[in-house]
Every structure is written in structure tokens, then in C-alpha cells.
């Protein structure tokens, strides 16, 4: 706590957010003025890193590396003759080895088209020794459940005839991922950490037309996706797995494995949406959404070693498994709502929604075991049919009434009824393999919005729900949810905001006894004491308390799962314009964020930073930034790291 207070004092005021950047040359929007046809900026630099502690955890949490970088590129081209486009905007950030590369392009010609393209290439590294290493206590770390993957997302959108009554549009998106990692090959009694390689891509094609008129609008869209998902796991050395205990006197091992999933999928989907205002006191909207994804999978598995079929205590040295399956998931969603304004001060909002999904899948799995030393086939192919279903029917009806008591005060009340049922399990055999459940909730809604002056406003939202049944033990059952927010502009230079959120959920049913309470209290301030200085700060105190009974699997004795998370979070940014020269004004910014928690996983995470921008010329500035990342966990101290990052470079603008 002392440390928290010390940090709070060290940041003159807690800031709104760490990402808020000083209004330097690179952050300002290049606005075309006069006859300038090209405006923009480029931000080039070099980052130095010094990392102490667990480098794998650093890469899992931060993952910024050393080297030259294109930190930002942002330009606008205005074509005065408006040939191919009126204006073209391009933004690109974090290229040259950083894990978060982004590019965005907008182009348009008034009344003819709007085009935009978005591309992101995100690298995910995840290797946390404490997460999934069963042998960690013995000092053996097999990096289980770790991966290094990249996900790339591309989106192209072309809107034709914007501003006209009839606007066709086309869009294409691709989401792909590839990577390597350590997964587990499960065999009876033992599991073997093995290398795996994955590649998947989803292509999404869609097109439609928007019809926009004064009193109504309709959008019709038809789309489809294709999926390719290949997963391969392999092993070619003797692998003793997680269970080092002999099983009936024999040491189990895996000496060879080739496991492959070939998944292919597709879907069609349809969207039909409308809004209408047939009369001045009524707005209506609705949508019909339908999708039908389906997949086909071919699975092959060849493994060798000293393995066991536990149900028959049958040791074997080779196994061949083949599987195939197909699944389909028709999914329909419908919604209709209206806003009625019968009197000047009253608004009635009514909305109904239904969501129906039915997954059905079937296939076959064949498994053959051999004892290679004797050259014998231990089992004929054991063929298992695969079949399952998951059906969901969800419905919701809600009515809200908003009453403008005065120009400054609005009251809000409402009622929501939510109901549904779900069924899941084996589609072939009724009985213990199948489960079903229902959900019934009645919710009362209330709220106040008070706008005392332009400088002071406050609003409170509340909803309380009573349930007859819920799908899961941890689902929302009897709960109260509240959010209150107040904003006050104390002076012309200082404004304050306070937020309080609360969620209290109780499920008193025997054997569950779920008690959940989550609170988040936040205070933020924005202060500009002079033209040269601005200070933003934010502090959030959050607490989470959860108790729920569960059954210990071995004895079926009742136990309680406890989870606590008590956290302090703060962010700040102080921006100072230093004395200038020749109309060039250097800027200094400092701040950052901290996170300190106690409870079930006590953690500290500090991210302070200092940034200096020195203009060298009206179009060139030297920018340097220092960041520190400090991460620590009390229960897993070996996972801590401390990283110093120094970045320096030039910002060139036009």
C-alpha cells in the first residue's frame, strides 16, 4: 500500500490513459489546407531493449524487440482534380519487426465510391511456465500449452454510390493464422507434450445493397465463408510424458507420432435489416439474420511406443486411428423493436429478440492397436460412431420507458423477460450422455440521468434480476447490476469524473451456493493549469469476490472454490511544453500506468514512460522515449521480468 501511495504521489495526478499521446507533430492529424495536395508524417526510430528476468514471460506480455522501426506513417493525398479519388488517407504503425503491424487505407470519390482496406499482423507468443506444466514441481519444464503464432486480418470494403438511394457494396475479409507450439498428445494414463504446427484461414465474401430513403431503410446482404484449418502434431524421440510412475510395472512412453487434422468448412449467411420512421412519433427497426456454417474433418493418427489401453489393461506398441466427421450449425436470429413517442416527454422502447441455434454432427472413429514385437494385431479396428447435438433457443422481450421530467432530468424504467432452453450431448444414445437445461429471468430496470448544468452531470443505471433457472452454476442468477457516473467541470481548467460499477450475483441453490461480488470505483481528472501544461490522471480500485461450492471428483465431497482479486490501477500523462526557440517548441511528456493486485494471483505490472520531442526544423523533430516494464507475481516469482526500452528517432512531417 505504501508503494501504491508513493507511486500515486510520484505521478502528480493520475492520468486518464497511458496511450494518450502528447499533441506532438506525429500525433496531430495532417489536415490538408490551401493548395497542399500531400500532407503527412513519418516516424522512424531505433529501439534498444534490456530485459532481465524471464524473457519468455516478457515476450508473452510485452514482446517488443530491439532494432530499427517504422513507428508510424500517416499521410493524406487530396487530388484537386478529383480524378480517381477526392482524398486518400493511409495510416501504418509499428512495422519493422514489432508484433503489432497495422495498415489502413481510405479512399473515396464523392457520390461514386468509398473504399477502405485494413490489414493487421499480430504476433502472439505465449510461454508461461506456471500455466500448464504438471512436472513443474519436480523442476521439469516441458513448455506445455505454449505457442508462437501470427494472426493476419485483411478487410476490403467497397461501397458504391454513397449518398444515393440505392447503394450496392462488396466486401472481402481474410483471417489467417499460423504458428508452432507445444500441445499434448493424450493417451490413456499418460499425456505427452509434443510439438505441433497449425495453419488456418477463413475467407469471408459478402455483398449487398442498401436502400436508403427518408422514411425507411433496408439492407440486404448475402455472404459466405470458407475455412481451412490444418493441425499437425508430431514426435520422433522417446517421450515419457507427464506420468513418470510405472503402470503395472511398465514405463509408458511415446516414441513416434504423426497426428493430423484436416478441417474444411464453409458457410452461407444472410442479413436483412430495416429501419423505418413511418410517422414522426414512431421509429421501428428489425433484422433477420441467418447463418449456416458447416465443417468436415479428416483425422489421422499413427503413434508408436509403449502405450496402454486402460479399459482392458492392454499394452501395445503401435496404434492407427482414423476419424471423419461432419457438422452443421443452422443459426437464426430475429429482432424487432420500436421507439414510440406518444407525448413530448415520454419515450417507450420495446424490443423482442429470438436466437435459435442447432448444431448437429456425426462421424466415425476407427482405432486399431498392434504389438509390433510379436507382429500381431491386438485388436480389430474398433469403430466408434460419433454423433452429438447442441440446441439452443433463446428469447428476450424488453420494454423501457424514458420520461423527461424536466429539461435536466430523465428517468428510466423497464422490464425484461429472458427465457430459453438448451440441450446438449450424444445424439445417438439418450440418457446420461444427454443434458438439458432451461433459463428464465425477470429483470427490473431503473435509471436516472441528471444534467444539472453544462458542467455537472450524473447518471445511474440499475437492473435487478430474479431467475427461476440458469444454464450453468456460474451463470447470472439473482443479480443486481449498477453503474453510476458523475462528471463535474470544477473550473475552466479542471474536470473530474467518478464512476462506480457493481455486480452482485447470488445463486443460493443447494450444492451451488454461488456468491459473486464485483466492484470497480474509478476517479479521473483532466487538468490544464496553464497553456504549457496538461495533466491527465485516472485511478481505479476494483475488487472481486467469488465463492461457489463444487464436488471433489474423487470423493464427491463438497468443497468451496474461492477467488479474490483486489486491484489498484492507475494511469497518468503529464505533458509540458518547454521553452521554445525560433517558434519551435520542445515537449516533455511523462506518466504511464501501474497495476497492483492481491488475492488469488497477486501481481504487479508497472509501465512508466518518459517522452521528449525536440523540433529541429518546422518539419523535423527528434523524438525519444523511455519505457520500463516491470512484472512480478508473488506465487510465481520466477516469472517476473524487468525491461528497459529506449527508443529514439525522427519524425518528419509535411
Amino acid at each position, binding site marked *: 500500500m505504501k508503494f501504491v501511495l508513493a507511486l500515486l504521489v510520484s505521478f502528480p495526478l493520475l492520468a*486518464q490513459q497511458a*496511450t494518450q499521446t502528447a499533441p506532438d507533430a506525429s500525433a496531430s*492529424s495532417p489536415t*490538408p489546407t490551401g493548395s497542399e495536395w500531400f500532407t503527412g508524417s513519418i516516424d522512424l526510430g531505433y529501439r534498444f531493449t534490456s530485459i532481465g528476468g524471464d524473457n519468455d514471460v516478457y515476450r508473452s506480455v510485452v514482446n517488443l524487440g530491439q532494432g530499427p522501426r517504422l513507428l508510424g506513417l500517416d499521410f493524406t493525398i487530396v487530388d484537386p482534380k478529383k480524378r480517381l479519388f477526392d482524398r486518400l*488517407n493511409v*495510416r501504418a504503425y509499428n512495422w519493422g519487426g514489432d508484433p503489432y503491424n497495422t495498415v*489502413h487505407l481510405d479512399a473515396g470519390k*464523392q457520390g461514386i465510391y468509398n473504399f477502405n482496406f485494413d490489414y493487421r499482423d499480430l504476433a502472439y507468443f505465449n510461454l508461461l511456465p*506456471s500455466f500448464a506444466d*504438471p512436472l513443474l514441481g519436480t523442476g521439469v519444464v516441458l513448455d506445455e*500449452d505454449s505457442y508462437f503464432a501470427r*494472426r493476419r486480418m485483411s478487410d476490403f470494403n467497397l461501397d458504391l454510390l454513397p449518398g444515393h*438511394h440505392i447503394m450496392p457494396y462488396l466486401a472481402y475479409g481474410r483471417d489467417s493464422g499460423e504458428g508452432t507450439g507445444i500441445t*499434448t498428445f*493424450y493417451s490413456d494414463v499418460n*499425456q505427452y507434450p509434443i510439438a505441433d504446427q*497449425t495453419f488456418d484461414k*477463413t475467407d469471408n465474401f459478402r455483398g449487398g445493397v442498401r*436502400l436508403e*430513403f*427518408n422514411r*425507411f*431503410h433496408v439492407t*440486404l446482404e448475402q*455472404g459466405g465463408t470458407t475455412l481451412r484449418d490444418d493441425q499437425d502434431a508430431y514426435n520422433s524421440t522417446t517421450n515419457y510424458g507427464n506420468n513418470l510412475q510405472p503402470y503395472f510395472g511398465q514405463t509408458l512412453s511415446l516414441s513416434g507420432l504423426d497426428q493430423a487434422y484436416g478441417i474444411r*468448412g464453409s458457410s452461407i*449467411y*444472410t442479413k436483412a*435489416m430495416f429501419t423505418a420512421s413511418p410517422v414522426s412519433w414512431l*421509429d421501428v427497426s428489425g*433484422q433477420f439474420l*441467418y447463418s449456416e*456454417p458447416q*465443417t468436415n474433418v479428416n*483425422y489421422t493418427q499413427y503413434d508408436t511406443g509403449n502405450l496402454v489401453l486402460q479399459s482392458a489393461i492392454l499394452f501395445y506398441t503401435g496404434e492407427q486411428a482414423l476419424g471423419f466427421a461432419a*457438422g452443421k450449425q443452422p443459426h*437464426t436470429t*430475429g*429482432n424487432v423493436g420500436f421507439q414510440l413517442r406518444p407525448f413530448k416527454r415520454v419515450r417507450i422502447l*420495446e424490443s423482442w*429478440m429470438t436466437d435459435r441455434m442447432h*448444431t448437429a*454432427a456425426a*462421424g466415425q472413429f476407427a482405432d486399431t492397436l498392434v504389438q509390433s514385437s510379436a507382429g500381431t494385431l491386438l485388436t480389430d479396428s474398433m469403430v466408434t460412431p460419433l454423433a*452429438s447435438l447442441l440446441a439452443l433457443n433463446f428469447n428476450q422481450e424488453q420494454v423501457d420507458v424514458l420520461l423527461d421530467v424536466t429539461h*435536466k432530468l430523465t428517468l428510466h424504467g423497464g422490464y425484461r423477460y429472458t427465457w430459453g432452453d*438448451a440441450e446438449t450431448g450424444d445424439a445417438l444414445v439418450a440418457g446420461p450422455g444427454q*443434458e438439458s*437445461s432451461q433459463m428464465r429471468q425477470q429483470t427490473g430496470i431503473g435509471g436516472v440521468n441528471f444534467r444539472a448544468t453544462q458542467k455537472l452531470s450524473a447518471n445511474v443505471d440499475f437492473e435487478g434480476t430474479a431467475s427461476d433457472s440458469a*444454464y*450453468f*452454476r456460474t451463470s447470472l442468477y439473482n443479480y443486481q447490476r449498477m453503474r453510476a457516473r458523475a462528471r463535474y467541470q470544477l473550473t475552466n481548467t479542471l474536470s473530474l469524473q467518478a*464512476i462506480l460499477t457493481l455486480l452482485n450475483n447470488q445463486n443460493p441453490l443447494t450444492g*451451488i451456493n454461488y456468491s459473486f461480488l464485483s466492484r470497480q470505483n*474509478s476517479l479521473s481528472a483532466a487538468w490544464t493549469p496553464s497553456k504549457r501544461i496538461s495533466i491527465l490522471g485516472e485511478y481505479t480500485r476494483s475488487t472481486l469476490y467469488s465463492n461457489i461450492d463444487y464436488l*471433489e*471428483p474423487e*470423493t464427491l465431497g463438497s468443497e468451496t472454490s474461492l477467488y479474490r482479486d483486489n486491484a489498484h490501477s492507475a494511469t497518468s500523462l503529464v505533458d509540458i511544453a518547454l521553452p521554445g526557440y525560433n517558434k519551435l517548441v520542445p515537449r516533455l511528456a511523462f506518466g504511464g500506468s501501474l*497495476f497492483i493486485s492481491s488475492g488469488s*494471483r497477486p501481481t504487479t505490472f508497472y509501465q512508466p514512460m518518459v517522452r521528449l520531442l525536440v523540433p529541429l526544423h518546422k518539419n523535423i523533430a527528434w523524438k525519444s522515449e523511455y519505457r520500463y516494464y516491470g512484472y512480478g507475481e508473488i506465487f510465481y516469482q520466477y516469472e517476473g521480468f524487468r525491461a528497459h526500452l529506449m527508443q529514439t528517432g525522427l519524425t518528419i512531417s509535411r
Partner: protein
Amino acid sequence: MLNNRVLPLLLLCWPAGAQTPAAPAAPALPSSAATYVGSETCQPCHEDIYNAFLKSPHNLINKEKWRNWATRACESCHGPGSKHADSAEASAIINPAKLAPEESSRVCLKCHLNQPTHIGRIESSHAKNEVACTACHSVHAHGPNGLVPRKMAAINEQCAGCHTEIWAQFQRPYKHRLPEGAMSCVDCHNPHGSIFMANTQAYAANETGCLRCHGNLRGPFTFEHAPVRLEGCGACHEPHGSANPRMLIRAEVRYLCLECHANLPNTAAAVKNPPALGGVPPAFHDLYSPQFQNCTVCHMKIHGSYVNGELLR
């Protein structure tokens, strides 16, 4: 298909509105005597705004005949300006910035209501909480960001201005990459409203928006893990940020699983009063052994499996 039947009906229902633009609803006037004077009348006194507006996407209104606002862009929001032009009094013209949020938004909705953006507006918590359009949009603005921030960092900054408690969650170590500028709030949420929980975006019509970037978890799987479909990714993950690896809502995986998987098998009596979903694991799961303390070591296909009902492969 429903759209084949209903949509033609809808189109037929408003034929007049379709081809003959109705006169726009006149905004409340400070005085009934006020008349339209045209945008150029505004220029001499409000030159900065006028010049900026010429580069704004909203300048389209000055050329638009659809709603009869051509040459009257300023008055399309501020109402007829003759009285104000004569008297130069602020009270003689509508200032949307000083209206109550609902009245202010109605000014925008005169043109923007019947657009696809506003599907879900009736269900939107922003609308119900009296968040006016101008809370996020700068009506006179121009430049590459147009009327609203477009850069991801700027979008996040704007949302965090009101949702500070959410932004605090992004300061935790395991989170989506918003603070790094690789994502923005609107990648997952639709600020104009959505029929889905927490104004979340949908993917491919009505599938969860998470699948836009996590397409490999889409399925349909031969064996689904029910909470993924029934309660969404948030049943196990805290999308804004967590102190727990993989953004899980519990510090240890076994508790996350056992909190649901603690029901005795269904019995005949349960048919009338179905219990919660999630049966207790078989007795060989010795939780004192590290081998069984992280369920996903064996049940690695936890989001759904194509070939194994226990999600083991």
C-alpha cells in the same frame, strides 16, 4: 427465406417514401417567423466554421437535394436562420450542443435514422443512457479523421474518456492489444447499438464477433463445449484484461472448470426440473496430483473437438 417474403412487402409499404422524398421534419424553431436564408449567409460571421465545414464530409449536405437541404447545410441542423441573421442573438437559433441529449440526437437522426448504422439503436445502452451523438462526433470537423476518431489509439482514447474503469482493465498484463494500438474498442463493440450483449459486434450475420479474429475456433465442432455457444467466450475469458494467463477469469484452470463441472448426472427426476449443465468428472481425477490440476493439459480441445467427446483430441 424470410427475406424473400417480407422485404418486398416492406418495400411496397412505403412506396411514396421511396421515390418522393418527404419534406424533412422541421426542427423546433425559436420563432415561427424564421425562414431559411442559406449557408452563405452564415459565412461572414462564422468564417472559421464555414471554411472548415467545406472540407467536412457533412459538406455533402450543401449539394444534396434528396432532403431539400441543398445550400442550407448549416440550417439543416441549426434550423431556419433568418431571425438569427437579423438579430445576431444566440437565442434566435437552435444550438444542438445546448439541447438535451435526446433532442440533440434527434437533430442528427433527421438524416441518419434510416441508415444501417442505426440497426440496434433501440437496444443500445448509449441511447438509453442519453449519450448524444455529439458526445463522440464532431459535426463541423474535417481532416482524415472526419467526424469521429479513426486511428485506433484515438478511438480507444475517446471511449476511455467515459469508460475509465474498463480502460483500467487494459492495464493488466494479459489483455487484448488495445493499449498497443493494434485494436480498438469498435473492433468488438458497436457504439451505435447492437442486439447482442454489451453492444458487441457480430460476425457473418449472427455469430459472435470474437470469430472475426479467431476463426479457427468457429466450428461447428462435432463435440461442442456448451458454454462457448450458450454464454460466449466471456464464460471463461475476461476480454478486457486479466491478471490470469490467457485472460482467464480464474487464477487456476481446475477451479474454472470445476465450478461448472460439479453436477451429479441427470436423473429421471431431473427431467421436470433440469439442473445446470456440467457433470462432475470421473473419480480418477486426483486433484492433489499436478497431472490433474490443469484440465486443459488433457482436454486440450477445450473450445470443441472434431473427434472426441471428452475434448481430449
